[in-house]
């Protein structure tokens, strides 16, 4: 009997590894090995025709820290995250509360909110180009009705990043709405009835009952929004290319530029490692939060 159990265990081990192997190979090729290779490349100098690359320790990192553009990009990305995360969460919540309430034209409203989610970022950027173009754009046309001068939204450092931020919020709020919508539908009706009987105002009900119950969803969305604030950069390629004078450049775009326009792979690698570090912190937050959520169940 024990030899039979032994055989079964060995059989499972063989099958287990066999079934895993295709995924394991691809994950190694495109996630684990590249991560390690990035770390190592960030510690070596750039190889040129005259000089092969050599170990330089943290020099690439020091160079980055001495690079004023790097700090502009970090600052931009912090602002980008700092605005897009709370604003899109707030809009998503409002959308969900509306789309869940008994209003007229609810189907239309839901569809309208969600539609940007299925568009590519590149297409979204093209659509918004029509709004931002100086002179011809919709924003300028509306502005001119009220006698405002034409504004080059994408072409001046003060507004370029904000124009980018608005497109991102537009793109992701509807996506986040769905998660709120699902969470709202799990809140039992009797809570609303009880609140009505107690004479609680709608505002009190929302603030004291709905929002606390939505907290896990908010955290989930916040993590996703954080990841998006690193990831969503496609529209930069169309709208500003990071300009003018780096005013709207974000980290992932800068990594791309370093690697594929300036051919400075070590600096790109050093930045990548830092981004992975930040994402690791986000991951830790999520694991911590996931633990909490299971605890509450």
């Amino acid at each position, binding site marked *: 009997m024990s030899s039979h159990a032994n055989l079964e265990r060995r059989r499972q081990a063989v099958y287990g590894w066999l079934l895993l192997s295709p995924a394991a190979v691809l*994950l190694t090729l495109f996630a684990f090995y590249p991560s390690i290779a990035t770390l190592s490349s960030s510690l070596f100098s750039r190889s040129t025709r005259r000089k092969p690359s050599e170990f330089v320790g943290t020099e690439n990192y020091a160079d980055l820290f001495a690079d004023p553009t790097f700090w502009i990009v970090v600052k931009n990305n912090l602002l980008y995250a700092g605005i897009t995360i709370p604003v899109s969460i707030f809009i998503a919540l409002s959308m969900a509360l509306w789309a869940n309430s008994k209003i007229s034209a609810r189907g239309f409203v839901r569809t309208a909110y969600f539609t940007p989610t299925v568009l590519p970022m590149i297409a979204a950027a093209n659509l918004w180009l029509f709004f931002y173009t100086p002179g011809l754009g919709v924003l300028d046309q509306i502005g001119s009705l009220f006698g405002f001068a034409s504004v080059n939204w994408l072409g001046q450092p003060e507004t370029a990043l904000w124009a980018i931020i608005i497109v991102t919020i537009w793109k992701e709020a509807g996506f986040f709405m769905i998660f709120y919508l699902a969470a709202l539908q799990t809140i039992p009706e009797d809570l609303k009835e009880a609140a009505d009987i107690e004479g609680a105002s709608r505002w009190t009900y929302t603030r004291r009952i709905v929002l606390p119950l939505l907290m896990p969803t908010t955290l989930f969305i916040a993590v996703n929004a954080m990841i998006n604030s690193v990831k969503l950069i496609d529209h930069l390629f169309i709208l500003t290319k990071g300009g003018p004078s780096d005013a709207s450049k974000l980290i992932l775009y800068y990594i791309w530029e370093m690697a594929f326009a300036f051919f400075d792979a070590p600096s790109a690698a050093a930045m990548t490692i830092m981004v*992975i570090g930040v994402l*690791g912190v986000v991951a830790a937050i999520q694991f911590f939060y996931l633990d909490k959520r299971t605890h509450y169940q």
Partner: protein
Amino acid sequence: MKSLIKFMDSFGAILLAIIWIAPLLFAFWAATHSTSDAVNLNLLSPWTIENFRVAWSGAPWLKYFINTFMLVTVILIGQFILTTLAGFAFAQLQFPGKNFVFILVLMQLFILPEVLIVENYAMVSRLGLFDSILGVGMPYMASAFGIFLMRQAFKGVPIELHEAARIEGCGLLGILWRVYVPLAKPTYLAYALVSVSTHWNNFLWPLIVTNSPETRPLTVGLSIFGAPENGVDISIISAATLMSVAPLLIAFLIFQRQFVQAFLRAGIK
């Protein structure tokens, strides 16, 4: 009072909805009118499909469409096979090292493929897959997210069915194929919708790995077509944009409920 609040709610919700689809509506307006009429918002100006004709002849769109279609198909097939096998191994088999490997897989959830563009590019070139559709798709096939999703779906399958199939003489792969896969159909559908719409819209990685109209997907083609250097005007860009989003957008409008359910199922694990 109550009806006033209700009116304000509807008003706010609809106003926001209109703002939200305004970019799309303006693009539609611009695409169906001549550039000068579009820019002047001349409401009575005649409609035209000329912009679509010009846009269509301005780039090998058909090729781009086929490329995108091939790309999402290749990725989806790869993902289905790999995540099914791995998800099953994680869900139903006991073997040493399983938990350690699972944690490694979960780590990949946070090392986004987008971040590793430089080394992945080197890897794709090393494998000789640069400028090929397989090269664009490969890094996404062993999706940690998909493995996790499938593991969850397979864990929900009652063990009695597994046992019954085994007693009937079904092998392990037979059980996977005949019991687990059919029962996980809703998860497959959800995953397919999320995967297709993600990769239909993906841009940065295909931009790096493709280098010719033979492999370029729609998003990259659209970005090249709309580049300001090409001096294309707003009506034609709008027409091209609408053309390239049309298939997914129409599919979304028809299967809206399924789309939303899919995103939900994929998001809340």
